[in-house]
């Protein structure tokens, strides 16, 4: 099993980086605010920046070890790197860009060119010049180029941050497909909660150059939602459930979350599928009792576990059937409803704002219903 071990100390601008973590197959998100040292950390793993001391081992190969003086140059590290700004070679066609690692880097052609091209939907753009591509296409070529370098480890440095929201949504399904196909550890640097929630299996939280928390994505993001300092509007939780019923006429699906059921919109789902939901705190309302005559149809009985106040607002952690929801309401509402830890309430979920993605297997890849293949 290919695993990445990182334990390094170094400098990034004005502050110290002192980081230790491990990453296995699947997507490990290096998550944290801008300027926390995430990108520098990625460069150190890639070999384009040098740590002061420590050790980096990928798949049993030592890439860096200050004790033995080992410091492999970037071209010998067997990595693939997707940069924020794509960095396609402007003087080469898409095809020559994609195959660069083979003709210039002499990397083996272990991954079929046609498969990667099909996976990323680039069949029609192979002879195009990079300057004629859209931002989304450019980033897809960059991802393909890194994959075709036969990497033992894929490093992605905020690959979506230079794109607008529409383009991001265009790329995300491709990233989800790659996550399943690649079968190698993927380190994904991001400061966007929604990307991390959708892609990551594991989250390593980086603050001021240090690992402040790490663990399964759902647990970390739920903890983060309550923590001070994070963006409270982007706080939310990830829920896993199973589809029990679909209604093609209304494009809706019923999802069982343990004992409770909710109904959400989405196409391409079938009963029996396991899905992952991301529910933002701002899209959850709280009621004392179930209500009729509301456009919100999803009303889950829940128990208040914790209330965190910040100024005019309050973030409320709600427990239901072993899972957790976060609700962002005004402090005034919290008082008006008389919310206390232990209060029995109903959590109201707006179906339109919940993001839903399909999981192939409990620990396997995540593929969106609108997968391009």
């Amino acid at each position, binding site marked *: 099993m290919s695993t990445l071990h990182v334990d390094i100390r170094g400098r990034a601008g004005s502050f110290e980086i002192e980081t230790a973590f491990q990453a296995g197959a699947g997507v490990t998100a290096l998550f944290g605010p801008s300027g926390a040292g995430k990108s520098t950390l990625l460069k150190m793993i890639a*070999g384009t920046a040098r740590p002061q001391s420590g050790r980096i081992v990928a798949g049993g190969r030592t890439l860096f070890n200050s004790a033995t003086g080992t410091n492999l140059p*970037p071209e010998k590290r067997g990595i693939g790197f997707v940069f924020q700004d794509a960095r396609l070679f402007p003087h080469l066609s898409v095809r020559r860009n994609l195959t660069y690692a083979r003709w*210039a*880097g*002499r990397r083996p052609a272990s991954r079929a060119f046609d498969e990667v091209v099909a996976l990323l939907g680039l069949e029609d753009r192979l002879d195009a010049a990079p300057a004629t591509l859209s931002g989304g296409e450019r980033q897809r070529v960059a991802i393909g180029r*890194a994959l075709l370098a036969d990497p033992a480890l894929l490093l992605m440095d905020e690959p979506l941050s230079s794109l607008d929201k529409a383009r991001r949504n265009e790329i995300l399904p491709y990233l989800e497909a790659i996550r399943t196909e690649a079968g190698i550890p993927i380190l994904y640097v991001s400061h966007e909660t929604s990307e991390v929630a959708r892609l990551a299996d594991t989250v390593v939280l980086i603050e001021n150059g240090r690992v402040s928390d790490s663990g399964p994505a759902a647990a970390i993001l739920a903890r983060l939602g309550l923590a001070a300092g994070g963006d409270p509007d982007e706080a939310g939780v990830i829920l896993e459930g199973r589809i029990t019923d679909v209604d093609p006429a209304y494009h809706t699906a019923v999802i069982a979350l343990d004992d409770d059921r909710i109904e959400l919109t989405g196409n391409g789902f079938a009963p029996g599928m396991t899905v992952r939901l991301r529910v933002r705190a701002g899209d959850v309302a709280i009621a004392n009792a179930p209500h009729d005559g509301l456009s919100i149809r999803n009303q889950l009985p829940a128990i208040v576990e914790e209330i965190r106040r910040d100024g005019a607002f309050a973030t409320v952690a709600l427990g239901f059937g072993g899972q957790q929801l976060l609700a962002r309401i005004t402090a005034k509402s919290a008082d008006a409803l008389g919310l206390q830890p232990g209060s029995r309430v109903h959590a109201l979920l707006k179906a339109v704002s919940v993001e839903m993605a399909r999981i192939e297997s409990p620990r396997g890849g995540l593929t969106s219903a609108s997968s391009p293949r």
Partner: protein
Amino acid sequence: MGETELSIILLSARVAFTAILCALVPAFAVAWLLARKQFPGKGVVQALVTLPLVLPPVVTGYGLLILFGSKGPLGQLFENLFGISFAFRWTGAALAAGVMAFPLLVRPIRLSLEAMDQGFGEAARTLGASRLTVFFTVTLPLALPGVIAGAVLGFAKALGEFGATITFVSNIPGETQTLSLAIYALLQSPSGDAAALRLIAIAVALALAAIVASEYLARRLTAGGRA
């Protein structure tokens, strides 16, 4: 066009081509050092490279005579090592033209290297390319418009070089008498006006052709798509 005129043009072309071909690699190396590296004495190197542009050409020519003349230290070194002598030879004319054109070669190459996003090189390294491979597959192709601009500019300068050449290797018909020197010689003689005018017309045509060629090359190279 008479036989003498043709031989003058061919000699000028040989001198200019030799000058640019020999100067191109060192010019690229100097441009690369100035664009990419920090080292003690960088200011001195920069000044030395620019010097032929601002110094009176006669002074540059005299300096070449002192250094590369048959009694000069570098002149004797080249004579002994490679059997090349510069004094009153066309090779000396090429050397003078190369030195005078050098700053014009370095500048556009340096600018294109400075404008180049070094992230491309970083990306190439992560894709398995060694430093040398990165140079030939990324750096050099991306700097090519600068190289061509420098080469064309330098070639035009080399073709028309006068002051340093006449000071260093004199004005010997068939050996060191390039286009500018021939025009100068003809204008000195009372009956040479007509012949001088023909050479002047040729010089103008060559200059125009060089400009058109460089524009065409620059456009073809950038049409491939620079974002």
